[in-house]
């Protein structure tokens, strides 16, 4: 057993209100720079939708992630030899149009315009070329809240029936906030010819060493989630850093901290690095189970000993025991990985959305009798859609999770209204009263310290003398093309 620690984020999609506050706090801190205007290390997309960059989920376009080849995993895009032969032109790289042309508005004109008959306007200009943009044709959330459904939402590859988003009676949507998943088997790391991308041993955060990166750009397409971006000014790759300067000191990531819906949970998972590869060789519909198998029980003494051997401190082990992430992902099995079939073993998990808790019956939905919850099969968000998004196509796994969420609501509704509680409701869903109350607390009234259990890095135990003077003022050197 090779037990290692990983910082993981869980997103409760039912609670996401699509406000984009997470994206803004991330942008303000990390990517409000030249060359990074178009990057959204954290973005929120409406599902169904084509996302950002457009159609990122379609690996026939960008060739991201891994595929099973006999008894081995290989990158879907290029092996090592072909990578070197394609160094002068990266065939799968997403281009600017796949994201959007970043723009800003000439607010100065509102003050500086000379007196005329009409009110001055702030015209849009490109943040790359500086030229005026007459018609803005795209943005990071162009299809927000199902706008332009026929163009965008109906092209969502997870949809079985495209027409569903055009029929008011059947329409559904929810939001999916996305950051870098800090995968256990990151394809970006494997694709980097410069060996600039690495996974930190202590907390599993995947980072790009800006000194080593030469800008060959294979990572930008190898990441199936399109969460590695190319800075067009500095000529290097950049990505979400899981706010490591904050998590190292025990603070929560900016996106999670600013989350209005309090949908995010951050905590430690212990996993067995030896099981990763074997887990990923399993067929698509068994990958959620494979994910759960890789995650270790932090209460097991054998696991704790193995983790200690890898330098995981007692503070981290305690955090792993209290981890809301462990509870949601493994203990209660509520959170699912985003597109596990890309086989990077993503370490961001999503609790599927139950809402709208309205059933579709016949051609249009009917409100259910007050106090009665619909069965999983008649929910408005089709099971197949959620299964394609979060379970490698396995509907059963998603149905189990939704069943738990419905049972939880039924149980708590009865409890709050002092109605007789049917113990079978929870039992059938695989929960008991203690579990239900714990989940209820995490979902609703759990405070900051319950939702985020982040142990600080203990630098005093990590060879401090060898590393003295290494950090303090950040990067003071110049980047970019020297313009």
């Amino acid at each position, binding site marked *: 057993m090779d037990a290692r620690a990983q910082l993981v984020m869980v997103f409760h999609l039912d609670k996401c209100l699509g406000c984009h506050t997470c994206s803004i706090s991330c942008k303000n801190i990390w990517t409000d720079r030249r060359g990074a205007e178009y990057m959204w290390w954290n973005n929120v997309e409406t599902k169904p939708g084509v996302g950002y960059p457009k159609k990122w989920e379609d690996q026939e376009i960008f060739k991201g992630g891994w595929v099973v080849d006999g008894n081995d995993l290989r990158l879907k895009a290029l092996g090592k030899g072909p990578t*070197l032969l394609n160094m002068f*032109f*990266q065939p799968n790289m997403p281009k600017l149009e796949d994201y959007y042309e970043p723009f800003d508005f000439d607010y100065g004109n509102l003050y500086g315009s000379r007196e005329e008959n009409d009110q001055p306007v702030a015209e849009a200009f490109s943040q790359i070329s500086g030229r005026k943009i007459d018609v803005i044709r795209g943005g990071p959330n162009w299809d927000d809240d199902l706008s332009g459904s026929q163009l965008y939402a109906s092209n969502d590859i997870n949809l079985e029936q495209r027409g569903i988003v055009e029929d008011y009676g059947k329409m559904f949507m929810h939001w999916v906030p996305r950051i870098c998943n800090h995968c256990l088997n990151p394809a970006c790391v494997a694709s980097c010819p410069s060996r600039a991308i690495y996974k930190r041993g202590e907390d599993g955060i995947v980072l790009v060493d800006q000194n080593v990166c030469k800008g060959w*750009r294979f990572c930008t397409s190898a990441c199936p989630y399109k969460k590695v971006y190319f800075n067009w000014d*500095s000529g290097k790759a950049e990505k979400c850093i899981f706010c490591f300067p904050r998590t190292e000191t025990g603070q929560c990531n900016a996106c999670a901290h600013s989350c209005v819906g309090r949908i995010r949970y951050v905590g430690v998972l212990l996993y067995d690095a030896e099981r990763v590869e074997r887990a990923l060789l399993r067929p698509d519909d068994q990958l959620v189970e494979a994910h759960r198998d890789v995650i270790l029980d932090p209460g097991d003494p054998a696991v704790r000993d193995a983790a200690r051997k890898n330098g995981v401190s007692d503070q981290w082990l305690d955090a792993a025991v209290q981890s809301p992430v462990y509870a949601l992902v493994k203990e209660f099995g509520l959170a699912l990985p985003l597109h596990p079939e890309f086989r990077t073993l993503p370490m961001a998990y999503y609790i599927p959305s139950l809402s709208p808790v309205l059933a579709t019956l016949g051609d249009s939905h009917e409100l259910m009798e007050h106090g009665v919850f619909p069965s999983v099969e008649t929910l408005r968000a089709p099971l197949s859609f959620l299964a394609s998004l979060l379970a490698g196509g396995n509907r059963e796994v998603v149905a189990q999770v939704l069943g738990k969420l419905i049972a939880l609501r039924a149980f708590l509704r009865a409890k709050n209204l002092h109605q007789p509680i049917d113990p079978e409701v929870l039992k059938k869903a695989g929960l008991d009263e203690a579990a239900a109350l714990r989940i209820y607390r995490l979902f609703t009234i759990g405070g900051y310290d319950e939702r985020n259990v982040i142990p600080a890095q203990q630098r005093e135990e990590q060879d401090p003398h*060898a590393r003295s003077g290494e950090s303090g003022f950040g990067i003071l*050197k110049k980047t970019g093309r*020297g313009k």
Partner: protein
Amino acid sequence: MLNTFLFVVLPYAALALFAFVTPYRYFSNRLTWSAYSTQFLERKTLYWGSNSWHYGVIPVVVAHFFGIFAPDAMQSILANRQALILLESAGLGLGLFALFGCLVLIVRRLVTPFLGPVTTAGDWILLALLLFQTATGVYMGMFLRWGSQWYLHTAVPYFHSLLLFHPQAEYMSDVPMVFKLHAAGAFLIVALLPFTKLVHLLYVPFDFLKDPPILYRWRSPKAGG
């Protein structure tokens, strides 16, 4: 006088700049060590430009170095007339390929508005120099035949004399002007290399070929390794 400047002063200045500025840049600020790809902003013409340029120029440059470091082997290969003709035509073909690529890269930067903000004076100097270098090379390939052979008796012994710190510009004094310019251009490129994005060619990804796919970095010395 001109010969002394072109073949003694310039080469040593170039080599000195290369030898001292390159490590200085590497150790002082590697944040600017990049090929500064523009594929993200424009990819259609880059495909033709970049591929033609690199696949054309790399074998030709390698052949130049082969001549310098293994002149005897080269000589014995070229003694075979068929091999000579084959090599000459392949070299000329690759040169034309590179020339085409270089022209595409130049035109591309001129006509694409997006590339304005990412094009520096250094890029233009470099492109102009590389165009000049490729054009003179192709010219010699066409009009001064059997260059792969006479190169071994002019430039190669001259390079050896340079590397032994006993420069003998005489080897180069009687060659055609275009050849002199071609040699001088080469030294200019070496001199500019550490100051421009050309530094990207100093990296060959050997580690990538031998490493396991997932790279870890540990802070704590007791863990993982």
